[in-house]
């Protein structure tokens, strides 16, 4: 039996980050992850699809359940 695939999004916060994981083949988990994604981006967080080993990131405007790893960052401002 194959192990379930786990995709995840790391949401930066004061604890370092909070991780939300989902199996792209499980609708309920995908929906929950999408809801979190929309909630955080609605608050101004920006989402990036990241690869492994520091590969170039890509900005995400919409939730993509096929994206294996995402990082959500709070809004940046000029210092």
């Amino acid at each position, binding site marked *: 039996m194959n192990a379930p695939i786990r995709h995840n999004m790391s949401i930066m916060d004061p604890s370092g*980050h909070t991780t939300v994981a989902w199996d792209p083949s499980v609708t309920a988990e995908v929906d929950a992850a999408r809801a979190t994604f929309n909630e955080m981006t609605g608050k101004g967080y920006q989402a990036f699809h990241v690869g492994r080993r520091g590969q170039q990131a890509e900005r995400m405007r919409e939730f993509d359940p096929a994206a294996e790893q995402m990082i959500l960052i709070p809004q940046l401002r000029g210092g």
Partner: protein
Amino acid sequence: MIFYYSAGTDEWITRTDSGTWTTSASTTMGDPYWALENSTSSTGGGTITLAQYQVLAAQQQAINSMLAQQCLTTQSYTSASNNFAQLYQPPQRERTPEEAAEFIRAQEAAQARETDRQKAHKRAEELLLAHLTPAQRETYTKNGWFVVEGKKQRYRIHTNSVAGNVEIMDTNRKAPPRLCGHCSSDIPRPDQHLAQKLMLEAAEDDFCRLANRS
């Protein structure tokens, strides 16, 4: 320069703008502390105003053994030093059992906060390292910076700060320009650097537009 009184170590300690704590005895921030803020907030000397001192003096727990003279020798201030001598009268008594218990509770709470802060920093650093290339990881570890390739320019992210820490490379200038853009301050520093990296790679124009330049 900001002064903090450490009730646990019974001494004044200072915190520079870069976040470094200096004290004659310890850098452990496991104690409750109260701020006496330098009105100029500069890195040099300044003036401690009478009003600010009075706010601090109202917090008796903070100054049951305040070392005013030590404070004055820690950082020179151009004025108001006489006000310390005039206003401050250290109470000559032991803590009551209730005060001692409260002090211990406050100390434990502060220690717990510091432990949480360290855990968060470690967690954030692990996330950052997981998203650096081997070359970036090497310079991060050895030199405290790493280079990010934007679509238009290259940037060096210095990790000793989150403000003014993004250096624009390849400008042939003796003092390369720097960009200052960061998230709200309550996320750990390594998260800030990762956020800067992601923006520069994938939203370079947006970062350059929002960042202040020096």
